[in-house]
């Protein structure tokens, strides 16, 4: 569904991404992990067109979207969330979704689109925020804001979902809830890229895990393969390969 080929990004002298390849299929959750500053968010930003990559290609299906402006990429079916939640806090919960549904459509329309509103209502109910639809987004708790951001990403009916640390700052209960939601999305055929520091979440639900370090992809495989990979342990813990397997708790920032 989404393919990243040899993607590079330089910021001055800093090579944030150095020829990264990554593929994401429908109905698949790919975890992307790596220490702070390893290029995970840069990858999402390059895929969504926040800045042009220095080299490489981004393909959605068979379409090369490397040079498209970001709003057009989103309209083609890519949605993302942010590491630090970015909602429109002075719009209501409902409006946060309403504004972005079918972003490509002409806005001139008389009356209401019931089909669309029903779909948005379903999405809101699915993340458990239907009862709060009239509240300003800024009045939600942090966990609720995370869920609203996920709902907003889904409002445009994407095929590819890029989640930038959706588990950060969530309680254990909220993490379970998030896991459940992501599993449902996967079963509906969504292609999900999960950038995460909470390794527990990634290891639980990812089908494959890729590891970035200093802009290079140093490993990719099933969660257990990656956990046992000595290069990954080194990236997270430093050079002492006699150390035990990476434990999620140790790897937290």
């Amino acid at each position, binding site marked *: 569904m989404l393919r990243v080929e040899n993607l590079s990004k330089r910021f001055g002298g800093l090579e944030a991404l150095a020829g990264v390849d990554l593929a994401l299929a429908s109905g698949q959750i790919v975890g992307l992990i790596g220490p702070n500053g390893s290029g995970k968010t840069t990858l999402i930003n390059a895929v969504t067109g*926040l800045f042009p990559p220095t080299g490489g290609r981004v393909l959605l299906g068979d379409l090369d979207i490397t040079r498209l402006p*970001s709003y057009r990429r989103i309209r083609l079916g890519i949605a993302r969330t*942010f590491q630090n939640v*970015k909602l429109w806090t002075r719009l209501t919960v409902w409006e946060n979704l309403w*504004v972005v549904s079918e972003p490509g459509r002409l806005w001139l329309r008389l009356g209401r689109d019931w089909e669309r*509103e029903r779909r948005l*209502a379903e999405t809101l109910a699915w993340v458990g925020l239907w009862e709060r639809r*009239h509240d300003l987004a800024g009045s939600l708790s942090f966990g609720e804001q995370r869920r609203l951001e996920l709902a907003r*990403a889904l409002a445009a009916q994407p095929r590819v979902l890029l989640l930038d640390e959706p588990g950060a700052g969530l309680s254990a209960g909220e993490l379970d809830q998030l896991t459940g939601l992501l599993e449902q999305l996967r079963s509906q055929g969504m292609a999900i890229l999960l950038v995460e520091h909470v390794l527990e979440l990634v290891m639980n639900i990812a089908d494959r895990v890729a590891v970035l370090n200093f802009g290079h992809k140093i490993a990719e495989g099933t969660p257990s393969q990656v956990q046992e990979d000595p290069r990954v342990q080194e990236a997270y813990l430093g050079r002492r390969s006699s150390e035990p397997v990476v434990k999620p708790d140790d790897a937290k920032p």
Partner: protein
Amino acid sequence: MDYYVALITLAAIQALLGLSAHVLILAGRVSFGQHGFALIGAYMAGVATAVWGWHLVPALLLGMLASALVGVLVGFPALRIRGVYLAVASIAFAEICRNLVQNLNYYRVETVGGLVRKVGPVGPEGFRHIRYLYDHGFTQETVMAVVLGVLALTVLGVWLLDHSRLGRRLRAIGEDELAAQMAGINVASLTTLAFGLGAVIAALAGGLYAHYLTFVSHEVFTLFTGTLAAGYVLVGGSANALGPLLGVAFFTAIGEGLRPIREYRIMAYGALIVASILVRPYGIIDHELLGRLRQLVAAAFLRSEPEAKAMGDAAR
């Protein structure tokens, strides 16, 4: 009586200018240069009626069109700037407009009762004899009615815009531009559109002003005018299209109400503005007040609750 008629007419024109700044503030852009667009509208519409002999309505429309084109032209390069930088750029733009009309000579000479007079922009002397309204039998009262009617329609238009998806997208851009861009909103074209719409409304205000007073010059549309336009929105509140109107009401009330204290007036004026910002930092109508009003209305009429419930059931 004439005093109140003039006060209301001028306040309504100011409110139009406030609404033009409001449209830009929706998209998170504070402009202090809306008087530049008002000036374009005033001169363009004035030339059309006084020099070319057009009817008032197409003349005003021409002014709005010209201003919209300029608005889009300056709005597009201004897309990347916000905040203080945009404020300065907008002031610079309006100053350029003022300098241009200060050097604009485009008049016809007519003789009325042995007196020779120049009708049209005469450089720094300004633009006199925009007499369309008074040549066609309008009185101060009918002009006031027309201006109020135009204001009511504009408020309605801005309100509808604000509550459409387009308007909410503008607000989304104003709240968090990056999130808007990353949600598929075409930030560049919508922001340019906001510049164009703001320019149109400001030009309407300028055109009406020119025909009401029959005289405009580069000294009429000063930075003070442009600053007030943004001030109306900031003091009145940008949560609703009525905010700028309340802002105008507030400024007019303190401006006129303080006349008895004469020279202390300007000082008290400033103090009251500061006080209003301290008491209501997000304006008289802010989102919190609007939310409470909405709840009151919903409780009173139970509007659309069955339908909301049906959708809630469908969602489960």
